[in-house]
């Protein structure tokens, strides 16, 4: 089985054009599970881990954005400058698998797989992240909301590679919470990211629908109430509204009823954390 290890984005996109059936891999924490389960049988693999710009991240305070290359491992997001700039992303990163997984896994994989249970995706949604895609001949940037189109489906074209994301900085509180039936190293049963920017609340829900769900109606409601008026009962109602916007299913990990309940509770708690009440 050929494995290509390009050292530039140009080489990578050219290789993908020439090998349209190739599987892209960085940390392999999704792909190898698929291979081990016999769900995928790659004939050609293109490894993206030697492309320098994919490993790069920077915080541009002047433009008010953070850029994170698609191969930057979650371990890098857990602490330090990135964590200070994007606390919700840090909290999500800390819930990804085990330390070994976090040393290998990256946003490129979460975006490429686009599972509704992808731990970082509610954060990218709530923070209005922009996903950068490149083919041999084109480059484009897609808002996360347009990028994820269904369960394990995204708008990446077969000849495109995800180089990274740009995340606008927010000027208010942000946080993330995830329910799993184990205290660590568990796939999300329900997750919520809540971020406040310019006094407005944004909320995104994971594992409770075919895509990450932005709680737009709940956002509009709480923003009309005003953050300064948030009381426990207001937060409770916010949770009820978030809950109503979720569209979960029953599966072997949990029930739709529990997931609906859990996102509501998490939204209430995150809002109270956000306003420190």
């Amino acid at each position, binding site marked *: 089985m050929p494995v290509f290890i390009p050292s530039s984005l140009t080489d990578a996109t050219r290789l993908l054009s020439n090998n349209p059936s190739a599987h892209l891999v960085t940390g392999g924490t999704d792909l190898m*599970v698929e291979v*081990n*389960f*016999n769900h995928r049988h790659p004939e050609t693999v293109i490894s993206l881990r030697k492309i320098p710009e994919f490993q790069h991240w920077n915080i541009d305070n002047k433009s008010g954005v953070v850029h994170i290359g698609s191969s930057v491992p979650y371990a890098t997001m857990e602490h330090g400058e990135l964590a200070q700039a994007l606390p919700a992303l840090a*909290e999500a990163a*800390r*819930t990804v698998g085990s330390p070994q997984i976090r040393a290998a896994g990256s946003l490129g994989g979460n975006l490429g797989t686009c599972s509704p249970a992808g731990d970082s995706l509610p954060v990218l949604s709530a923070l209005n992240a922009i996903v950068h895609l490149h083919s041999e001949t084109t480059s484009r940037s897609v808002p996360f909301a347009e990028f994820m189109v269904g369960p394990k489906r995204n708008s990446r074209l077969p000849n495109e590679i995800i180089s990274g994301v740009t995340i606008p900085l927010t000027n208010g509180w942000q*946080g*993330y*919470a*995830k*329910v*799993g*039936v*184990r*205290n*660590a*190293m*568990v*796939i*999300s*049963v329900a*997750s919520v990211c809540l971020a406040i920017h310019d006094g407005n609340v944004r909320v995104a829900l994971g594992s409770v629908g075919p895509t990450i769900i932005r709680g737009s109606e709940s956002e509009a409601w709480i923003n009309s109430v005003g953050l300064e008026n948030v009381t426990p009962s207001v937060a409770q109602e916010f949770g009820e509204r978030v809950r109503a916007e979720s569209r979960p299913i029953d599966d*072997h*990990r*949990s*029930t739709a*009823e*529990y997931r609906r*309940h*859990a996102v509501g*509770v*998490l939204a209430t*708690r995150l809002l*109270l*954390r956000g306003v420190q009440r």
Partner: protein
Amino acid sequence: MTITKTQRDILGSSALRPDGVSKVQGDFAFSSDLHAENMLWGATLRSPHPYARIISIDLSGAWKIAGVECVITAEDVPGQLTYGLISEDQPVFAKDFVRYMGEPVAAVAADHPETCRRALAAIVVVYEVLTPLTNPEHAIDEAREPIHPDGNIIRRQQIIHGDVNATAPIVVEGTYDIGMQDQAFLGTESALAIPDHDGAGIEVFVATQWLHEDRKQMAKCLALPEEKVRLVLGGVGGAFGAREDISLQVHTALLAMRTSRPVKMQYGREESFFGHVHRHPAQIWMRHHANTDGRIVKIEARFVFDGGAYSSTSSAVLINGVTHTQGPYQCPNAIVDGYAVRTNNPPCGAMRGFGVVQACFAHEGQMDKLAVATGIDEVEIRLRNIIHTGDTMITGQVLESVAPLERCIRETAAMPLPREMEAHPHELDLPGGSGRTADRRNIVRGIGWGVSMKNLMYSEGFDDYSTARCTLTNGSVELKFATSEVGQGFVTLAPQIARSVLGVDNVTYDTIDTQIGSAGSTSASRQTWMSGGAVDGACRMVRERLFEHVGALHGIDPLRLAIDDTDVVDTIGSLRITVQEASTNFTVSETFEYHHRPTQDLDDNGQGNCHVAFAFVAHRAVVDVDVELGLVKVVQIATAQDVGRVLNPMSVIGQIEGGIAQGLGLAVMEEIIVTNGIVRNPSFTDYLLPTALDAPQVLISMIEEPDPQAPMGAKGVGEAPCISVTPAIVAAIRNATGKSIDRCPVRPQDICF
């Protein structure tokens, strides 16, 4: 002569595992690491359906693939077509019907695992899919035709004891459900089979719990004399009961014999979930009648164990369940009805605790209900009812084991409770852990109790003896036994015994294989007692021969001689020579078979002296619960366990801590989810095991009251830790939430709705 005093690795010391360093460093060869020259790989085709008639099997596609050397089905089994530990009702390969999802239908041998995978994909099996029998009650009510020639009821056993019409003023009742737990050993099933050059026999390296039983079953299916099937223990990565039944043994051996080449088989994690039996899911109804002072007068109970498609050890699991209805409490009158039934769910069999886990979950739930109904606290209600040595159990058997139950409970109760949660706890210490779901104000703390007794060794007339040989020469000892080392530490203990009995330090053990008599299974908390007894017996016989030798040389009656540290001494004279010196140019070898006292079958009313001995334990659990989200963090487990005598403190602590983690798993997360006979979560992604973050603080007291029936006074310690910890945790969750929860594992939705 001066003796340099050093810490010797004798009984009572925390001797280190001989394989410990290599396991930690990754050098230890597990059975999956084995390799042979010219080796082929084997793989198994399994049924995707829980119940179906096999219309046809077309192997031609597989044979056409380059690199495929052999394809076999039921047609190719030369001997008996079925096998089993108690009843031989399980096909080596399904022939006419498949009765559970994952049942083997065919096997291939090829030059590479990937070739095997393609060969399996090229086999065409036409099934007529049938409606699976998945509700155990439908196996009992005869609503369904038998799904197996042996019928849908594997065994029914009643217990009728005392005055069945007895009544009492306090009556509590409950129905308890226990989910299907997996042993989830880390080293998946694997074997390497090497055929003899003359084609008349085979050598198999395999990770198993009982070499001789595997050999017996394999020889029958392979149509070989037992002496032509030689088994060698491959490095075992955990067992917990899942290696008691054979899995890939016959398949691997048959492929090797057919191809005249070494064949290796190794299950992946997903296949492993289909490759071994699980803990029986069970539904247990109990009604306790008690006086107002809390004393139990009568227990009524009904047990239904779902055995799945084949019987495995279901009949023995049932007996363990029903005979432990009363738990570690006195009970003069009982009416118990128990079933182990056949369904198209995954086969269930041995797992640590073996039927007692299920019974204990029910009887401890009942004790808490009794405490509420009588207004007596949960510790006092248990103390008032505890069983003592000399009491008659509901089987009519008199409890002969040392029973320091009161000490277990009182010492557990005396252990310090964890501190109150801080105002700003670390996020990882809260329920939900790294998910940061909870804040301090969302958490409620609860405390719960569980107490249990567990039978040791095999029951119902089974003579599960063990064999060991001890050879002393020039101050060194070599031991030989067939005891499966599955991680429990017998390879640590056996040399400790020899050092203590014989006063030598250099003790080695030979390859663990079938070149000596059976050791019985590494299960039922039995190897310290049984194989320990065998090693102890063999070493004592060697010691007698050494004393005769020294006595003859020095003109001393051997009866006057004793071992003192590493010396042979004359107890009433001045002779003192080292064992090293005494055994120079002297070789003696003795083999000893240890048998426990005989037991009896139960009669139709469940009466009989069916068990050998018992061990006791108490657990107190402290949990923090996020009631609104239904998430749990087990904060602390305090336990005092009746161990008889501590032979290796570190090993005992390891068993206790590990057993508690396994019992915690059953309490709050571990469950194989089966829907209409389909396993939904055959992976470690979705079958959740506790992580380090889920493991609680564990406070341990080892209660040492040596049991005169046990060879070294020591009781088996392997199973007791995982039995009553589960009901203790669930009781703590009830205590925290005020909810009535009668099932385990407890799911978030069981708490928050």
